[in-house]
């Protein structure tokens, strides 16, 4: 099985190279400001995430999980410290370069799916490919492949409102992987789903990690979801408690 040219054996080879960290955080701090009042969210995070890992990030509300995920995904800038992802120092990149980097490197899965309601499943999956120079037929092939991997090839012409919550999230995963990113970040991917659908989504994430070698960082409150990850990390009051 392949995902845009990445074979299963290649994925295994990637996992073998797990010793090399794909994400390196040093002295990472992030604060928000309400007027002149500083509200620290992350307080000096040092972290190495190996390539091909499936890590779950847990912690109470307000502990800084989503903020940490956003920083690693290049959606936000740290107040202090450095972020190196896949050998690239994100702190030194311009907004445009960062957007381009995100398109090539990161696949996003959100809690509430975040599909564009007026686009079909195929249209939603194709969105990241509009940023590439691929031809229309190449884009179509990739969309089909991504939807086949998530088991929704037959639903490619359906609008989001014609799909169940679990199916919508699978379309969102197809969108996250269609451009063959190195890392998939998932923010509460099962938060809006029933147990059965949540298990299907988690199965899919495990498959992406094991068969396609994707590094997966998942924020979750759900211990059952966290159990599917190879590493669980806990955040509290902006600090990493243990690994």
């Amino acid at each position, binding site marked *: 099985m392949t995902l845009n040219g990445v074979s299963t054996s290649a994925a295994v080879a990637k996992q073998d190279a797990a010793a090399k960290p794909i994400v390196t955080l040093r002295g990472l701090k992030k604060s928000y400001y309400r007027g002149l009042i500083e509200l620290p969210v992350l307080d000096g995070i040092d972290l190495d995430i190996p390539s091909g890992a499936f890590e779950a990030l847990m912690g109470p509300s307000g502990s800084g999980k989503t903020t940490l995920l956003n920083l690693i995904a290049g*959606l936000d800038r740290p107040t202090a410290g450095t972020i190196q992802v896949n050998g690239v120092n994100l702190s030194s990149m311009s*907004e445009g370069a960062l*957007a381009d980097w*995100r*398109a090539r490197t990161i696949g996003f899965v959100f809690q509430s799916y975040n599909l564009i309601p007026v686009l079909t499943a195929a249209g939603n999956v194709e969105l*990241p490919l509009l940023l590439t120079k691929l031809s229309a037929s190449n884009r179509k092939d990739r969309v089909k492949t991504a939807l086949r991997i998530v088991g929704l090839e037959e639903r490619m012409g359906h609008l989001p409102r014609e799909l169940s919550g679990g199916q919508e999230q699978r379309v969102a995963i197809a*969108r996250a992987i269609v451009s063959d990113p190195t890392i998939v970040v998932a923010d509460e991917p099962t938060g809006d789903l029933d147990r059965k659908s949540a298990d299907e989504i988690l199965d899919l994430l495990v498959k992406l990690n094991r068969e396609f070698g994707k590094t997966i960082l998942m924020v979750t409150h759900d211990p059952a979801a966290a159990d599917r990850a190879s590493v669980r990390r806990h955040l509290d009051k902006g600090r990493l408690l243990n690994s």
Partner: protein
Amino acid sequence: MTYRTMLIKNAFRNRFRSILTITGIGVAILAFVFLRTVVDVWNSGLTAAAEDRLVTRHKVSITMLLPRTYYDRMGNQPNVSSIGYANWFGATYPKDEHSFFANFAVDDDNYLNVYPEIVVPPDQLAAWKADPAGAIVGQTLAAKYGWKLGDKVTLTGTIYPGDWTFNVCAFYTTTNRAIDKSSFLFHWKYLNDGPISDRMREQVGWLVIRVKDPSQGSAVAGAIDSMFESSEAQTLTESERAFNLSFISMYAAIFTAMDVVSVVILLIMTMIVGNTIAMGVRERTHEYGVLRAIGFTPRHLMVLIFGESLFITAIGGALGLLIALPIVNGFGKFIEDNLGSFFPYFAISSGTVALAAVLALVVGLASAVLPAWTAARLQVTMALRRLG
């Protein structure tokens, strides 16, 4: 899928709102086209002016008369090919006294020579010349009142009191659509020999001169005016264009107001489209956050928002022009029949269509500036926190 597909789908995401907006743009374009057409047609008097025609009138006012003897003296000027004269008669038609049409007493021999755009069939022209009470009637005016050749028409004089009866001898048409086709012309001699006060006898309202070389027009005008400089009735000679402009400028305030209203219409249109686009952008803030997260840049969002705005205004503009053509041109027929003296023709010009189309697109761009700027400045994480 392409960006175009996306922006079209976005444009019709809230169909009711989009249809209302498109209809609003269509109506605004219709109003704009109508007002521009009124102003254009009113100003067409300037385009109707011939380069080789001069008009001489009393220096003080057009309402003051000049001695007819000026006609003979001016004819001796070098570079003058022909001269005609006319008096404003200002009579009304008793059967329709609230309607207005221009009626002039003109000289038999030369008036039509200085206006080659006025075409009268030769046999009818001969009949008119042979009948002292004969009248030449514009095609539109004749059609309005159903006058036929040989009909007797009585007008009631206001400047020259009394009932004046004329025989309809000829109909005229024009080769230039900007020239009035609803005028009523009759012999100056009929007026001069009629029951008028002695001080008005042997007087003319204005003289129209055709010059051999248009580049010598101002020299001829200067020579004519200096000829009568020491006379009791001094003259003012100007090009026909300047003469027409003096009439047009009398109503300048009205047409300036129309121009202002046209601009107001465009501003309203900008606000209608701007509001629709802004609402769409506000509702889609979360989606823009998602697009930014997956790699879309602020420039991509701006392309989508400007494209959507242009798409909506293009449809609205096309709709407006589509309905404006039959409505304004249909209404124009009514205006030509009833207000032909002011609006000899009333039709949308290609210039107005092009202007409306360009302005619709400019409005499309202007309306999207603020929403696009707002979307481009969104912080991804803030946008993602907004409810979808």
